[in-house]
């Protein structure tokens, strides 16, 4: 086992720039129509998955990676993070995941995180090492009505990190959001309706809506907000809505029913299980934290470890992974959802294909299928087991160097004790 590990890491360092890879012999969770292959082969060529099969014949020119006894999955997708927007969140910065009011956007809808992404942030390297290859990233803290446009980013250490700018819109209808928007949900929802109605009106008014809008406009939205909200109304930009209580979730369902074009995903959804059937009927999936089983407030009295399992039983889909510095723990969270009734395969789907679908990037990410971006992880065993780990991460078809700042700190101090602490200085 250890020998295989060493071999694997040797291969990894030697072949970082290999263009053609063949991952052979692993238990492959395709998360696609092929399901699970007990001993599968994944061919990677030029950054893409070329083929997934049970064939053991490897065409010439492919670097062979032996994954026998290991588990192969698509790269994990952080379902709701601030990766790339945050370095050190408290009292140190930089932090672009919280915003102050600014005249550029009256409602916050126009805010666009794709301008703020920096994948050199330490947390990106640390998360990548543990199998997170892409993520939805968005503003988490704002007093405005909308939290603005999130992006889907790649954790690829090379190249452009933005996979999809303006990928989704974030809105919160929780009690905390109401506090910041009129102090009551009676005000919050009217503001939401008004903002969307303004976007509809501007769209209806003639061939050049923006001109008409600019001529005589006295709405609560700014021009930039209207433009973005029109994309949301068309369903071109998915709308991620935070709500926890069954009462608020029902409002979300009704809101979607009134605006048929909307593509809605529920976020948080602590009491989603109570309205599971309605959510499924409305085609609304849920990003949730399956370990959230204590009420943070009176909107979460129905908190239960069985939330994900109950949604699955009703035919719903969930994504798991709401964190930034420890998005790498999404595997543990999914494991705990599985130990409370979620199927293992949906536990993996909650980290891969489900968030990809919710974000509208499932054509490119989330499964091991020909033509998709080659984001692949080779695990030492079941990824949902806390004692297993990512042994090799492949992003965009390239094996990444399996090291991080944390890894270097560990090795430095391990060496220090190994030398019996002979020199406490760090002169090199």
């Amino acid at each position, binding site marked *: 086992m250890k020998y295989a590990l060493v071999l694997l890491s040797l291969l990894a360092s030697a072949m970082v720039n290999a263009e053609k890879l063949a991952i052979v012999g692993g238990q492959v969770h395709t998360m696609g129509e092929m399901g699970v292959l007990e001993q599968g082969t994944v061919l990677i060529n030029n950054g893409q998955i070329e083929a997934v099969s049970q064939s053991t014949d490897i065409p010439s020119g492919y670097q062979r990676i032996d994954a026998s006894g290991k588990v192969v999955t698509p790269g994990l997708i952080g379902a709701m993070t601030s990766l790339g927007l945050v370095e050190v969140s408290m*009292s140190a910065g930089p932090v672009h995941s919280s915003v102050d009011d600014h005249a550029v956007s009256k409602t916050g809808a126009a805010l666009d995180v794709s301008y703020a992404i920096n994948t050199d942030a330490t947390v990106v390297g640390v998360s990548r090492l543990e199998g997170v290859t892409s993520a939805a990233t968005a503003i988490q803290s704002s007093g405005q009505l909308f939290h603005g446009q999130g992006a889907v980013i790649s954790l690829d250490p090379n190249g452009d990190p933005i996979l999809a700018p303006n990928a989704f819109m974030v809105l919160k209808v929780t009690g905390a959001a109401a506090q910041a928007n009129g102090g009551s949900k009676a005000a919050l929802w009217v503001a939401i309706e008004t903002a969307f109605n303004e976007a509809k009106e501007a769209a209806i008014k003639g061939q050049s809506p923006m001109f008409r809008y600019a001529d005589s406009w006295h709405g609560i939205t700014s021009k930039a907000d209207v433009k973005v909200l029109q994309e949301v109304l068309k369903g071109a930009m998915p709308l991620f809505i935070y709500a926890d209580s069954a009462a608020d979730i029902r409002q979300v369902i009704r809101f979607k029913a009134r605006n048929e074009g909307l593509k809605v995903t529920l976020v948080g959804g602590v009491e989603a299980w109570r309205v599971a059937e309605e959510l499924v009927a409305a085609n609304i999936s849920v990003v949730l934290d399956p370990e959230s089983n204590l009420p943070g407030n009176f909107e979460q009295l129905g908190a239960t470890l069985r939330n994900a399992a109950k949604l699955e039983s009703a035919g719903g889909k969930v994504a798991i992974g709401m964190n930034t510095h420890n998005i*790498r723990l999404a595997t543990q969270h999914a*494991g705990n959802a599985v130990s409370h009734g979620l199927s293992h395969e949906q536990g993996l789907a909650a980290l891969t294909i489900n968030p990809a679908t919710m974000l509208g990037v499932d054509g490119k990410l989330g499964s091991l299928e020909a033509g998709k971006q080659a984001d692949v992880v080779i695990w030492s065993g079941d990824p949902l087991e806390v004692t297993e780990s990512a042994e090799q991460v492949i992003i965009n078809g390239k094996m990444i160097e399996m090291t991080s700042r944390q*890894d270097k700190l560990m090795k430095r101090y391990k060496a220090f004790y190994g030398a019996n602490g002979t020199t406490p200085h760090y002169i090199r």
Partner: protein
Amino acid sequence: MKFTFKQSLAALGCAALLSGCTATANSNKTNPDNNNSDTVSSVINKDPYPSTYKPIPGKPTIITNVTVIDGVGGKIENGMVYFADGVIQAVGESLTIPSGAQVIDGKGKWLTPGIIDNHSHLGVYPAPSTRSHSDGNEMTSPVTAKVWAEHSVWPQDPGFAKALAGGVTSLQILPGSANLFGGRSVVLKNLPSRTMQDMKFPDAPYGVKMACGENPKRVYGQKGGPMTRMGNVAGYRQAFANALDYKRAWDKYEQEVAQGKSPKPPKRDLNMDSLAGILSGDILVHMHCYRADEMVVMMDVMKEFGYQIGTFHHAVEAYKIADKLAENNVCSAMWADWWGFKMEAYDGIRENIPMVHNAGACAIVHSDSKIGIQRLNQEAAKAWSDGVRAGFDISKEEAWIWLSANPAKSLGVFDKTGSIETGKQADLVLWNGDPFSTYTKAEKVFIDGGLAFDLNKPDTWPVSDFELGQTVEGEGK
């Protein structure tokens, strides 16, 4: 009843008049570890809020065919454990089954000591976390050693029952970390009850929460200070200098009382009571501290004033100074993998716990979280496997020391609980598999030999008053 009433009167007299009380007047209420009659605490009632804890009745029970992790580094593959009268009676590979004992077949299951979390805010930051419930941090002055967490504990916090389902049998409730001295801690047995006193761990010593680094700076920087780390250290030093004076004055007073004189008692100061308790060794120090260099400074402050730091909490950089922590006999209570949320947590690594352990220092897995406390076995499992991957040769049975024996030592209760050894309190968890797996759950949790949680009987799971009649009456409904 009458007797108790008279005793309380005597105690009241002591507290009110602080004279004429002999060391024995309150000796029934003082820590048995403390036989030092010339400390300040001999005339001040050290235990004015005594434990009224009563174990739930248990049956004499023997668990057979079970994988035993004893919590002090030992493992029996196919062992037996017998407990009765709240106490572990026998442990071994093969025991004679006592007549009348309930037999539990532990085939395929693991038995461990109950998990002890030495860093919890359950009850003081309960769920729901409304402002009305926010009672964990007396952010009014940098030195509030006078406040006692037990006076904030809301025993109806649904979090206690959730922690119980995770195998937590004892826990320390700490004040927050805004202050240099945040106040006294309380150790509880995790049997959710009507009152804090009904949960209070009998004869556990008090602790005092102290805090290094960013938090006091941030909270007091614009409120009169401290606003720097050097300001923090000046704050601890001045407080301990004052406490030395206070202790001297009380020692002198007690000496004169003992000599039959009638001296005027020094003025009582509740902050100083707690600090003098630290100096005399009656009260254990639990210090929130992240950075390696700061911990080393604090160990010098400790020597300067002649007290002992029991445990650094969080200790995200403990791996950098594990040798010094071992030398100074200071424990580190750590997370498996929390890091980066603030600058002093920036150098957090996954191998922190195993590296501290490997250096021969006392390593503890703690939660500081109402969610994390529910699966501390998984936290230990992560730290263990990260350590093994990094080349540290640690067994699972050694790793369990982080969850039971070491936290028990950190809380001063290792003579009572924290291991599966004859004579110890029967605080035990029967797991339905290997507790180092995500999928394993606590099947039965015993506290003092009484069955406190049974995974397979959801109707018996505790439901707090708060949950009653709500959407979810505990996970069981």
